[in-house]
């Protein structure tokens, strides 16, 4: 079966239009090819997983979408707008949020401030009014604060709201990372190994949060994950990368039975 261009046959949720599409994206660092001619699309409201062995180019792919890396070839079409390169803060402005594989939190700031920082872009009032907390600035601050408290409740981290995140256990830091991304009210949420290094219970919690985000807010999710069980349970469609090339694309069931994927993961006799 040729999975390369296969259309997904059965999906668990209602998927919308294509919101993000990559066409022939290639990325190289010097002589090392990280991505070679990768194309795939992401539909609105779906959970799209990117999997592959170590060094397959998964994180690079995420970084291309997010604007951290500029691909040498190919285009990225996001909500009808085609581009080749952009700055990370522009990606953020257009509604793409992300979390990080190795935590990148503001360690000296409290959980509350970390998540509030996610709303920086939405704060419009005058800096002097903000400093004095008067007039429209106060109203704005209260509104943002309410949103952030909702996220904190949702992620069940009320008990550590005022704690500097550097002091939190790893599992909770991962939640703060997710919370900060959610505070941006993103259209597309990129999750780089949200469950890496977690124990079984922490993984279950994180799975629940991701599914809830997807269900309740309809957020489109692109996720990289190593835990196969998690990927198969969570995602609507899966892209498989190996050595920077796309080797399969389809529903979890299709991908699981693909010979190319089995070869890539288990190795193949030459």
């Amino acid at each position: 079966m040729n999975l390369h261009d296969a259309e997904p046959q059965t999906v668990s949720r209602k998927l919308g239009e294509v919101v993000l599409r990559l066409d022939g994206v290639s990325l190289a660092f010097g002589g090392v090819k990280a991505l070679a001619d990768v194309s795939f699309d992401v539909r609105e409201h779906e959970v799209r997983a990117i999997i592959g062995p170590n060094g397959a180019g998964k994180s690079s792919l995420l970084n291309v979408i997010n604007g951290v890396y500029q691909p040498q070839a190919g285009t990225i079409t996001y909500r009808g707008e085609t581009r080749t390169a952009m700055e990370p803060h522009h990606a953020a402005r257009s509604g793409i949020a992300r979390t990080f594989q190795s935590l990148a939190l503001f360690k000296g700031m409290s959980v509350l401030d970390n998540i509030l920082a996610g709303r920086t872009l939405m704060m419009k009032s005058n800096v002097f009014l903000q400093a004095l907390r008067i007039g429209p600035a106060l109203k704005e601050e209260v509104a943002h604060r309410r949103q952030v408290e909702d996220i904190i409740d949702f992620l069940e981290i009320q008990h550590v709201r005022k704690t500097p995140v550097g002091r939190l256990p790893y599992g909770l830091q991962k939640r703060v990372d997710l919370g900060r991304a959610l505070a941006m009210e993103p259209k597309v949420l990129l999750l780089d190994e949200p469950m890496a290094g977690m124990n079984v219970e922490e993984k279950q919690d994180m799975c629940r949060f991701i599914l809830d985000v997807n269900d309740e807010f309809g957020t489109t999710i692109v996720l990289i994950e190593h835990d196969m069980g998690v990927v198969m349970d969570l995602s609507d469609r899966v892209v498989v990368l190996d050595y920077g090339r796309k080797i399969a694309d389809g529903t979890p069931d299709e991908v699981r039975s693909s010979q190319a994927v089995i070869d890539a993961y288990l190795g193949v006799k030459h």
Partner: protein
Amino acid sequence: MKAATSRNLTIAFFGLLALGAVSPLLFMGSKLAPWLEVILGGLMSGVLYSLVALGLVLIFKASGVFNFAQGAMVLFAALSLVRLMEKMPFLLALAVTIAIMVALAWLIERLVLRPLVNQEGIVLFMATLGVAYFIDGLGQTIWGSDIYTLHVGMPKEPKILFEGTFEGGILVSMEDVIAAILAAVMVGALALFFQKTSTGRALRAVADDHQAAQSIGIPLNRIWVIVWSVAGMVALVAGIIWGSKLGVQFSLQLVALKALPVVILGGFTSIPGAIIGGLIIGLGEKVSEVYLGPTLGGGIENWFAYVLALIFLLFRPEGLFGERHIDRV
């Protein structure tokens, strides 16, 4: 180091400091009034160290760069102001100087920081060394290298306070008092800016993690321009105060060397640390100069700050208020 031991060390340090400060009264038979004069004088000069240190801390917090050019910026700001005042009224000259400092910040971001983004701290430090010499030369080329006197209406006459309470009263320099008030206002404004505004939060975010800050939509470049501009403002205030006290001259930029022990003492990332560190060093060097000088042979004022900083580097490298690094192994 465990948190409890660390806290005990802090308490012990402040205890020792207080003991050292009052010991002339207790053991050396010093009179209350002259002792108060020494203490006040020390605190006032400490405020000036704090102001320069504040500029260092601001830039370090937001970009992780130790800005060697802070002293040169103090001189440059003061020079610009004093020369512009020859041609226009004070307020206009002040506004133009502020504009110049913002333009300088923008240029530094464009020409120095942006090409060096994601480089090692030492690389950026070396770059600021170059910036320091450049600003120094630029200032002297444009504005000249004479000694200029800066008159911004600071009262030069010292006042005698509490004449009724003490015999002879206490001699206080009104210039220092005004400088202290200015510095306090400045610190208050900066604290509000950093803690309460979304821009301040963005600045702290950038300080902690560049990549994550970008991912939530904070444009690094603009943040750097803002923080270097704010550091430029702080340099301007320090330049005005020092300049009207000592005259605007080359040696003004050497005050930055005194600010280095201040930030080591207070912690590189702490604004209150810069203030308290400055006060401690100002106080410590005055008290030891006046009361230990005759016994130890004088000149203590020149090395006191550095020895204190050395002791801190040995026992408490993060300073009094710096962030301790907790590394996960």
